[in-house]
């Protein structure tokens, strides 16, 4: 793997949206599901995010992402079902353990929030080239230095991993035991750490020099070879998202006051 990216190349409406629009959707949908302690609101957003994933043809990949957190979600059901503070009404018994209705409902609320978080961010990550997201953010005012750090990490970490395997091979060829019991593995790790850190520092310095002589520190207006256009659709989606956000905040305040 050369790049830390889950991007799935495709040509759908969602892929063509400005990355910031997708980021905004992810953030606002997460905030709204957290503002309202309602399973219904959460479920609506989960359903909508899923619809986006399906229309972007990334549903299968999305299931893989959800698989990763499956155990965490299950543990939520068990822990809240058994030990939620406001547990009063028994729902069912399993192997002698009583699960309570209040806990199960609360765990369901947590699950829709987490699932929405994963799906809405999943839509962003699976349908956006990482460098486009960073470029888009820099175009909107993010510091180019910070943007560089974000973008380069995605490629440089896999490079470091490949350096690690080269160093491991070199050390093994000189008799270092990298397999065996925990102690052997641990001492092998330290033998790799020195060359890896030094090598990475040298490379980082050279890379810093290389980008410096290509004008990285030049102040002033930057241009972008991939100018990511803000389409009409983007503008309308953003306006709708802002409106939804404001309505949600106002509504929440009214509910809280009443």
């Amino acid at each position, binding site marked *: 793997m*050369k*790049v830390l990216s889950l991007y799935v190349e495709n040509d759908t409406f969602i892929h063509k949206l400005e990355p910031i629009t997708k980021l905004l959707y992810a953030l606002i949908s997460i905030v709204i599901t957290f503002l309202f302690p309602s399973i219904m609101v959460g479920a609506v957003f989960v359903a909508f995010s899923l619809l986006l994933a399906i229309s972007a043809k990334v549903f299968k990949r999305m299931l893989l992402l959800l698989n990763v957190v499956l155990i965490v979600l299950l543990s939520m059901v068990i822990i809240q079902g058994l030990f939620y503070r406001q547990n009063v009404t028994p729902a069912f018994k399993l192997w002698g353990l009583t699960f309570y209705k209040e806990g199960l409902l609360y765990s369901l609320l947590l699950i829709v929030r987490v699932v929405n978080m994963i799906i809405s961010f999943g839509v962003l990550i699976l349908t956006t*080239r*990482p*460098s486009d997201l*960073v470029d888009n953010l820099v175009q909107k005012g993010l510091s*180019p230095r910070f*943007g*560089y750090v974000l*973008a*380069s990490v995605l*490629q*440089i970490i*896999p*490079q470091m991993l490949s350096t690690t395997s080269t160093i491991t091979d070199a050390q093994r060829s000189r008799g270092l035991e990298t397999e065996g019991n925990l102690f052997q593995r641990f001492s092998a790790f330290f033998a790799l750490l020195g060359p890896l850190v030094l090598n990475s520092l*040298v*490379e980082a310095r*050279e*890379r*810093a*020099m*290389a*980008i*410096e*002589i*290509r*004008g*990285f*520190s*030049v102040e*002033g*207006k*930057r*241009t*972008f*070879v*991939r*100018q990511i256009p803000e389409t009409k659709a983007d503008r309308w989606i953003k306006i709708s998202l802002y409106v939804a956000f404001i309505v949600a905040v106002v509504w929440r305040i009214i509910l809280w006051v009443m």
Partner: protein
Amino acid sequence: MGDVSTKISIEHLTYKYPFAKNVSLEDITLSIDAGQSIGIIGRNGAGKSTLCYVLSGLIPRFFHGKITGKVTIDGEDVPTMPVEKLIRKVGLVLQNPFSQISGAKMTVYEEVAFGLENLGIEKDEMHERIDTVLRQFDLYKKKDENPFELSGGQLQRLAIASVLVLKPEILILDEPTSQLDPRGTTEVFETISQLKTLGITILIVEHKFEKLVEYVDKIALLHEGKLLGYDTAEHIFSTSEIETYGVGQPIYTALCKRMGLKKANGYYPVSFGETVALLNGLKGSGMDRRTYNG
């Protein structure tokens, strides 16, 4: 470009890295004409890379330390020249092709655009310049590939293209072939040969002398931070002291020195072509049939 005028002038340049015990460059004085190609040679620690860093402005901007003397390009002081101006004057290509890639760009095309974006070049001009250099360096077919998927030679060509797209008048190459195989080395030297025809002033640090001598007009010999010689390759390599500095010499020069074969001008041949010409000239003179016992 192409007119014979002093492009780079260095006068009594001395530089010491921060925390270093000794100076890395000591009282260097030399001048380079526009359009010339200069080879910089010397053993490790001679100050070759340091000289490149001074000329490209990395010293004192990136590396601090103590610098004295005068370094000018087109009469303008390099250490105080604004960065955006200096970048348009001087391009530097480093040793390791992998660490020169910005790492922030996903395709070869975007990688070449990196420097242009930093300088705020307009989009149309950017596309035009990128297309030209990618074709010039035979990378156009690779434009949508990830830079890290290229071979070493291609990557070094990409590094040179990424610098040349900024249209510098001077290109400095610091051991550009040290990590490349023979094919990658040939690719880089062919590129340098193309650049010479464009009138770009070239400085190249290189240990592969047999290749180097074919492309440069003059050679600067550095030893322990001092400039010991600045002359044509045949002058530099014909001296008897060259072997004492631990820099080596072209295999053809070493061979001819061993055989006592000199050119008509009294210097030893430095390239394959010169050696062959010399040996051909000896045919029939009886020397080609002599038994060599040296």
